[in-house]
């Protein structure tokens, strides 16, 4: 594993066996990482415990709090988001208007490069030297930190999970709980190695170590960077939800606050915010609300005792308008980044976040990553699903994830990405089902062959290609000696 020279610049070129974890070379193929992950017992154990607990907790808290009304709450939330997306131009304009009237400076970034450039320009113009940052998936997406490091601005992640990742030269593997793939032993080793702290695996002590290190940095920082959970259009406000209050520090103490927010985070007004605040933390971590919710409507006013002198919001596109224009896929922009789908997904639980080879993992990642970066580059993702439906059931804004995964698969087929061999196989398969007699003939031909390969229990231990993958992992039942329709024909008159 190679790393750069700067200890604090964790995400410059994080590599594992020569390849960037979140920005691998394209087209990206999952299989290697999948294989490594499923056989990494320690990793799987850590991820399973965390995701299962949150999934079970999510179901319980919603059942306890809302009972059968939970479903209508999700429907409402989905409708609010869909409406906003369907009229995004209007709400964007309204937001910019109100925010600027509040003294917030709003910038629009078409892509990642532009978003980073705007941020660097502001930082340099304001002569910032030290930056503290709260968690933001968008900044992972734009790969912001290397851009700041390149101009000599030391940046510190203040979300405890992101901080530990930064210290350990690692990257997030989950949208909400970024270090779900690590445990306290990993953390203890990292703190000892990088911070010179005494080795301890006690979570409270580890947190104290982190706190002491971070507090000092907070005081010295002159730039605070955050993400945003929601943008409220009619008040021009930015809403940030955290459990650690680290965002509150980042957006209050430093002189300049810059927020990176995807354009899809807009909602119309405060009454809609209430709906989402009921749903977000319950869906993420099975809490009624996050401990801290910051609603920011502008920089420090004369009467305020604290607050930044400048508040900038960078509205990030970076492929979102492309998804918006895609009628079928637009729905994916409803996502409030709660992570419930990741926690519900039996595939995520086995391969974990880094196997998706992108910033956004899990079921939502399998949809938006191909959309953001090209289906041909991430063709594996929509197929790496058993379509079990747990994600769609978990989604607080009712994104019909399984249906959209299938939509991407149909696009792969239509554009030839699925390959000619598979297409021929399915054409033949479909043709055999066009008539009852072709179906029976196909079975009559293959049945004896398969039964001949089976043991006395009727199971095949090595299936012929292309089905070999099946028997790599389990046995394959052979067809029954007599099919149901054979039995019916033999025993019933009316066939």
């Amino acid at each position: 594993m190679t790393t750069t020279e700067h200890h604090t610049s964790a995400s410059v070129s994080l590599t594992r066996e020569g390849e960037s974890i979140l920005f691998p070379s394209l087209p990206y193929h999952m299989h290697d990482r999948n294989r490594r992950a499923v056989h990494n017992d320690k990793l799987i154990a850590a991820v399973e415990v965390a995701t299962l607990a949150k999934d079970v907790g999510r179901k319980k808290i919603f059942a306890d709090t809302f009972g059968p009304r939970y479903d209508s709450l999700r429907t409402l939330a989905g409708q609010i988001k869909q409406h906003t997306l369907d009229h995004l131009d209007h709400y964007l304009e309204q937001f910019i208007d109100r925010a600027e009237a509040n003294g917030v400076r709003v910038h629009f970034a078409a892509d990642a490069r532009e978003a980073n450039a705007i941020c660097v320009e502001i930082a340099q113009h304001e002569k910032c030297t030290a930056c503290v940052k709260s968690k933001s998936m968008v900044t992972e997406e734009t790969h912001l930190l290397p851009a700041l490091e390149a101009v000599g601005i030391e940046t510190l992640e203040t979300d405890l999970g992101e901080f530990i990742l930064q210290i350990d030269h690692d990257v997030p593997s989950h949208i909400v709980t970024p270090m779900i793939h690590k445990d306290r032993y990993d953390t203890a080793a990292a703190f000892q190695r990088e911070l010179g702290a005494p080795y301890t695996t006690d979570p409270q002590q580890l947190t104290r170590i982190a706190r002491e290190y971070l507090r000092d940095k907070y005081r010295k920082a002159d730039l605070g960077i955050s993400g945003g959970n929601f943008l409220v259009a009619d008040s021009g406000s930015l809403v940030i939800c955290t459990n650690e209050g680290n965002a509150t520090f980042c957006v209050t103490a430093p002189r300049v606050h810059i927020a990176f927010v995807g354009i899809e985070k807009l909602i119309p007004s405060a009454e809609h915010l209430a709906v989402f605040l009921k749903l977000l933390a319950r869906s993420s971590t099975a809490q009624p609300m996050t401990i801290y919710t910051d609603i920011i409507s502008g920089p420090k006013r004369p009467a305020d005792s604290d607050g930044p002198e400048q508040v900038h919001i960078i509205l990030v596109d970076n492929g979102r308008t492309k998804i918006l224009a895609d009628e079928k896929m637009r729905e994916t922009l409803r996502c409030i980044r709660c992570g419930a789908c990741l926690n519900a997904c039996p595939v995520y639980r086995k391969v974990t976040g880094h196997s998706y080879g992108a910033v956004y993992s899990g079921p939502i990642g399998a949809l938006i990553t191909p959309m953001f970066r090209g289906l041909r580059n991430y063709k594996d993702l929509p197929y790496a699903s058993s379509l079990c439906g747990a994600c769609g059931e978990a989604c607080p804004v009712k994104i019909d994830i399984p249906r959209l995964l299938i939509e991407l698969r149909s696009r792969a087929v239509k554009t030839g990405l699925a390959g000619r061999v598979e297409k021929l196989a399915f054409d033949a398969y479909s043709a055999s089902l066009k008539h009852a007699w072709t179906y029976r003939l196909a079975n009559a031909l293959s049945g004896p062959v398969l039964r001949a390969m089976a043991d006395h229990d009727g199971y095949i231990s090595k299936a012929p290609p292309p089905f070999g993958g099946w028997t790599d992992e389990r046995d394959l039942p052979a067809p029954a000696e007599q099919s149901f329709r054979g039995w019916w024909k033999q025993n019933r008159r009316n066939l």
Partner: protein
Amino acid sequence: MKISLFITCLTDTYYPRVGRAVVAILEHLGHEVVFPAGQTCCGQPMFNTGYHEQAADLARRMIDVFDDADVVVTPSGSCAAMIHEYYPQLLHNDPAYAERTHAFIHKTHEFVEFLTNVEKIDLRALRCKWPGHVTYHYSCHLRALGMTDEAVRLLQQINGIQFTPLKKTEQCCGFGGTFAVKYPEISGAMVRDKTACIAQTRADTVICNDGGCAMNIAGALHREGSEVKLKHLAELIAEGLGLLENDV
């Protein structure tokens, strides 16, 4: 009533005993069961893999084959879900089929759902008896049908049965159709998780009501040398009513 049986391609080919059990139960309840011979496949494998034109052709065919059926019952949750969830999307632009699709969906029932919601069966009253220790795997596509614990409630009506709930019963077994062949390492890890949970219950039999799940879980149990049997709830009920000889 007259019930048209949709056996499904997997159950027809791999689990014909399930079909015999379904027929036996429905007839025992006083219904006439017919089997439209033209049926083949609902099109789910094609649809899930992205071959939507082929899937639409098969969907049209299904609707034609069952055109004069009053009620359609199928022992496979995933096929019933395919029909309920995705047939509208496949055929809504086809004027010849758009309306008939809705009629077809309305009259098609998954077997356990039929027993519970339409028949409102009471297995105690029917004196269904099946002494044995069982657990139950919740097949994923039941989600799309809005089904939850119907099968468990039926199991608990059976005299002599010992039921142990399966941990993570709702977690996918890893079949997913072509997924099991395309992503074997993930599918394998998922099915082994499932068989581990089954083993933990110490049950002798796992009830599984979907042909795909059955092939997957049974294949994994056999690979592990497990003695645990896999049965469809229909087989259990038919045995318990004395309609089908107990399978050894």
